[in-house]
């Protein structure tokens, strides 16, 4: 077990393309750090650099205080779970699990004990003699997890481990992973493009875009105090609405800051009635109502554009009618139009 530190790390490909620029982040000992970003943001590359599968162009990576930049993967004491499982197709589940210990010269009896214990933990006892092609998607993923767990590595790296599974299975394995992390207490880095997965799993989240760190914080902070317009739009579903002061019924009541501002309101922050005197009204025409059962998604056209609001179902709401919605002042996010950075109101 060990902390992972990534300091000013950059990656430039042979063709001169910069994949990562000046990335600094850290996972505390035992922490589950989720790295999230759109595809092509460099998150997988970062993980592979930590694993030692890609070289580091600049900066320092430390595991347990030791600089590992020049160490080969096998010297780093890390384990990794791959998106497509990367199980050895010519080996049984047992052999897949045992391989890492075998090549490190662990005594056979010890290997057998640990393989069986891990298999029991993951519910794979009955699968030990099967080949990967004879397993279901979930069993494959569990085997890949088991292979990584078995060596009790200092850092556990997961590269979109659930993205190849279907939705119900993904939810189930997400819960299992969370439990597993608590019982193992190992430092984990979890890479995903799915912001909801990052929110639900990560103790802290690193949002990455364009090869740069956008924000590092707890899920609550990332959601409620996004550091910039990109994070605000990327985290949360349906995404945040972006508005101008003039979108509201009375622009003069909208709090102003320095410079030109853009405002953000999450869809669930609209109310059909005012809650207090300070609430800001916004009037629009209902274009579409999409029922989600317990709530409705309303598409409104207001003076300057469109917004999406999540509301409790109400008989009174009809397509084509005007409706006035209210936003609490504390639910209003503001971003500098030029830099995109968050502005506190």
């Amino acid at each position, binding site marked *: 077990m060990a902390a992972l530190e990534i300091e000013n790390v950059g990656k430039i490909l042979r063709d001169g393309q910069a994949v990562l620029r000046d990335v600094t982040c850290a996972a505390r000992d035992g922490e589950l750090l989720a790295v999230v970003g759109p595809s092509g943001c460099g998150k997988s590359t970062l993980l*592979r650099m930590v*694993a*030692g*599968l890609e070289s580091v162009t600049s900066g320092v990576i430390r595991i347990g205080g030791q600089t590992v930049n020049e160490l*080969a*993967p*096998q010297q780093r004491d*890390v*384990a*990794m779970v*791959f*998106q*497509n499982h*990367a*199980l*050895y*197709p*010519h080996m049984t589940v047992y052999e897949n699990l045992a*391989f*890492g210990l075998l*090549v*490190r010269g662990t005594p056979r009896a010890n290997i057998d004990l640990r393989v069986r214990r891990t298999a029991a933990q993951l519910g794979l006892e009955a699968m030990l003699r099967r080949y990967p092609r004879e397993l279901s998607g979930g069993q494959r993923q569990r085997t890949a997890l088991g*292979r990584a767990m078995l*060596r009790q590595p200092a850092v556990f790296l997961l590269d979109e481990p659930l993205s190849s599974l279907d939705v119900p299975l993904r939810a189930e394995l997400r819960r299992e992973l969370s439990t597993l992390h608590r019982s193992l207490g190992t430092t984990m880095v979890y890479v995903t493009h799915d912001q909801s997965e990052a929110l639900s799993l990560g103790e802290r989240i690193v949002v990455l875009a364009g090869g740069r760190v956008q924000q590092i914080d707890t899920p609550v902070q990332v959601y409620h105090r996004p550091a910039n317009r990109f994070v605000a739009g990327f985290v949360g579903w349906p995404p945040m609405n972006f508005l101008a002061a003039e979108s509201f019924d009375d622009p003069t009541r909208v709090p102003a800051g320095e410079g030109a501002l853009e405002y953000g309101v999450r869809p669930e922050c609209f109310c059909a009635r005012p809650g207090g005197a300070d609430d800001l009204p916004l009037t629009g025409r209902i274009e579409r109502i999409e029922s989600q059962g317990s709530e409705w998604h309303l598409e409104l056209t207001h003076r300057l554009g469109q917004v999406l609001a999540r509301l409790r179902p109400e008989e009174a709401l009809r397509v084509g009618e005007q409706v006035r919605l209210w936003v609490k002042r504390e639910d209003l996010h503001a971003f500098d139009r030029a830099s995109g950075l968050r502005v506190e109101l």
Partner: protein
Amino acid sequence: MSLRTRALQVTTYLGLAILAIATLFPLLWVTSIALMRAPETAAGTPPLWPHHPTLYNVVDIIRRQHLGRYFFNSMVVAAATTALSVLVAGSAGYALARVDFRGRRLVSWLVMLGVLIPNQALVLPLFEMFRAVHLINHYAALVLPAAANPVGIVLVQAYMRGIPAEILDAARIDGASEWRIFRSIVVPLMAPMLAAVGVLIFVVSWNDFMWPMIAMQQEGMQTLPVALAAIDREHYQDIGLMAAGATVTILPMVLVFLASQRYYLRSVIAGSLTD
């Protein structure tokens, strides 16, 4: 089924049957002649079937022309060439596809260039080189140049590209050394292609003619096709004897092919998909 499709189908089977007879008949006829004796082979067109099948010709060519010796030479050369080629092509094809090292692109390019060089055009300097190191009339003179086979490398390289790189990454993280990865992961994964390349090279080596004829001039060192061509120049009128020689040369490769058809045809198909 309409009458037209039915007619088309009958024509197809008929066409294939005719083609199959055309390809198989010459081989069967020669085998049949090899089993005949003087009266049948002496005058006019030999009959289609031997009336009194006998191994006389086969025994004759083995005993008088020492065919066993040449058969042995061919076996040794083909087996050694295959073993060496599979080793060389296996490791090079793997590294070119899945290991990043300085000069990889240059080596890949050289291999592709090698494919485009007709090796029979190189026999003159090759002869000089082997003469200089006194290896003419040694098995090495046949094995070494034949193992310099860029096609095998290209086949393995293409096959290896179809295997996810993550599997090798997983093994690296599991702590396996590069050599261990090669031995425990790569070799088992590319075994089907190694088998295919092996069979292909075995057959090519067995049938090779021009260079073996040049490099093996000492009596008793020739391979089967070379010896057969030499016997043919002297005894071409002895149809029974020559038919026996041809049969003995052809039959082992037909058997090898029948036994390993799946692998052999895979290498043929892969060869057309590699670039």
